[in-house]
């Protein structure tokens, strides 16, 4: 039996927009296993990003419980949550969200620096992940000197550099052209297979969705299907 990385148990999320309450998630339960390559699919407003934010300890559920590696997130303070995000989770955002004053190398190195990793380990690790995402030779470039696809590759390198047990990617291909998007999915797939990194990413791009090994569909904040596909 495979080990569970994320347990989402009857989670709801209600936002208040002025006097109107918007229910973004309604009683969603799902368990993500170690090594999963899962896609959250669904139309805009279905609750994909909300669920990713909750799993990523960036937001708190209104109801229900989320556990990461068996640890209940609701029992943790903000400092402990920051530490958890640093050590266990890698993030890839739709808009790349790199630190603009740092080079590609430094962006990938950032989480390792926060972790206080020794210089030799940082060097070895950053070089390895930059090689893995195909950015050799571009280490010294700042984000503004890289294409969208290259920036997203740096974001992936940053997400996996510190060796997290889980990578969350919110619409990682949304701002990329089809070919670059497909290459990025290939890259993440490769990392998933070779390094056993668990990936959960959201997308409504059919080409991305068809690559999913596990497809979790959401509609109106509810889980409508959860299917596993053969590798």
């Amino acid at each position, binding site marked *: 039996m495979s080990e569970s990385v994320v347990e989402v148990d009857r989670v709801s999320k209600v936002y208040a927009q002025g006097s109107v309450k918007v229910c973004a998630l309604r009683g969603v339960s799902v368990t993500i296993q170690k090594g999963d390559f899962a896609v959250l699919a669904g139309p805009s407003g279905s609750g994909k990003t909300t669920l990713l*934010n909750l799993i*990523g300890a*960036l*937001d708190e559920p209104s109801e229900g419980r989320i556990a990461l590696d068996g640890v209940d997130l609701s029992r943790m303070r*903000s*400092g402990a949550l*920051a*530490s958890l*995000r*640093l*050590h266990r*989770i*890698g*993030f890839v*955002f739709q808009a790349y*969200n790199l*630190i*603009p*004053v*740092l080079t590609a190398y*430094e962006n990938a190195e*950032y*989480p390792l*620096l*926060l972790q206080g990793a020794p210089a030799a380990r940082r060097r070895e690790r950053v070089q390895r992940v930059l090689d893995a995402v195909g950015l050799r030779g571009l280490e010294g470039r700042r984000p503004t000197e890289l294409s969208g696809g290259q920036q997203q590759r740096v974001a992936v390198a*940053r997400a996996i550099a510190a060796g997290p047990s889980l990578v969350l990617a919110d619409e990682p291909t949304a701002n990329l052209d089809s070919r670059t998007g497909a290459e990025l999915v290939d890259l993440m797939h490769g990392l998933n297979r070779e390094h056993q990194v668990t990936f959960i990413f959201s997308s409504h791009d059919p080409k991305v969705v068809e690559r999913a090994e596990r497809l979790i569909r959401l509609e109106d904040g509810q889980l409508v299907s959860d299917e596993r596909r053969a590798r």
Partner: protein
Amino acid sequence: MLTLRLAWRSFLRHRRRSIITTLALALGLAMMLVVVGIANGAHARMVELGVRMGAGHVVIEGRGYREERDLDRVVEGPAEILAAARRLSQVRHALPRVTASGLLTAGDASVAVGLTGVDPAIEPAASEVASKARRVAGDYLRTRAQLEYANQPADIYIGSQLAENLDLGLGDRVVLTASPRGGGKPASAAFLVRGVFRTGMAELDGFSVQIPLDEAQALLGLGGAVTEIALMLDSPDQVDAVVTAMKAGLRGRGELEVLPWQEALRELYETIVLDDAGTYLMMVVVFVIVGIGIFNTVLMSVIERTRELGVMMAIGTSARRLFAAVMTEAAVLAVIGCIAGLAVGLSIHSYVATTGLDVQEMFGNKLAVAGVVLEGRMYSRLATGAIVEWTAVIAGIVLLSALYPAFRVTKLEPIEAMRHV
């Protein structure tokens, strides 16, 4: 190291804004050092002139003599006190003096004057009035033993304006009248004009005369007593130590008091204190402007980067580290601004400290402050401690101004911050 790297890169990100802020900071510090240096220099010059023109750094006199001008409140047995004072290493000159009011008559004209009896042998080296530099005609006073004839009138040394008002020339005979100790009939004595001085101070030039100490003691019936002993020190910084030492030495002589120049020249001292207060007030305005500038820069920088800061939080940067990052950015501004400010400020200070500023050129005339005429050149003066203090004050203001923006960052929610455009 990461925090410092981020701070430095952020400084470089908006170069123009960073440079303008740094310049404002540097100019604030430079201006402060220059203004304080010149004010210190001017004050030191005023004290030096005030002290040399009259009172001395420390004055020993009969208790209440300054207010009452009562010749019964004098310093008896001054020799012992003079000897004790001269044993102190900080005392350059110890001057016995008699000061009183009198009436100077020349022909039909009379002028009320302040008369000072001095020791002609030691006064020229110590006092500005008696110095050769201030002499416009004749020579300085002689003791009776130095006179050509034992019974000839003693010498008198008078101010230039007084000489002009009474139409007096060298060798002219005048009569000085004063009320002697214990009251009674005014006493008079004749004097021959020996020399004329000009200080630029109307009070001294128009209404002041000096005569030999023993002549003053005889005229006023003081015997061997004096009205004050003025001490000239190597430096004004030694005043407190000398006052303490003299007070200890005079224990048991309750009729005497030891006054620092701040009490003997109260008007001058209060003027300096008031001027310092004005300078500090101006500095407060500069501090506020610099503080607002820094606050604005750091806050703008934080608001502009809300999204970026949200991402940093999302990927695991703690609130404490973000606080440190913003404060480090402010520290980078402070360090660069202070280095530039010190370079500019100390260069100007160094120039003014060595070359000086011509007071007459600056003000078009001699500048009189609290009865002291500032003339010649004014030199900037800054103690190392003051430089360190002012630099620390500016750096402190920068860090203080950054506190709110840094604190604001710690309150960001990653999700909200990342939605910021």
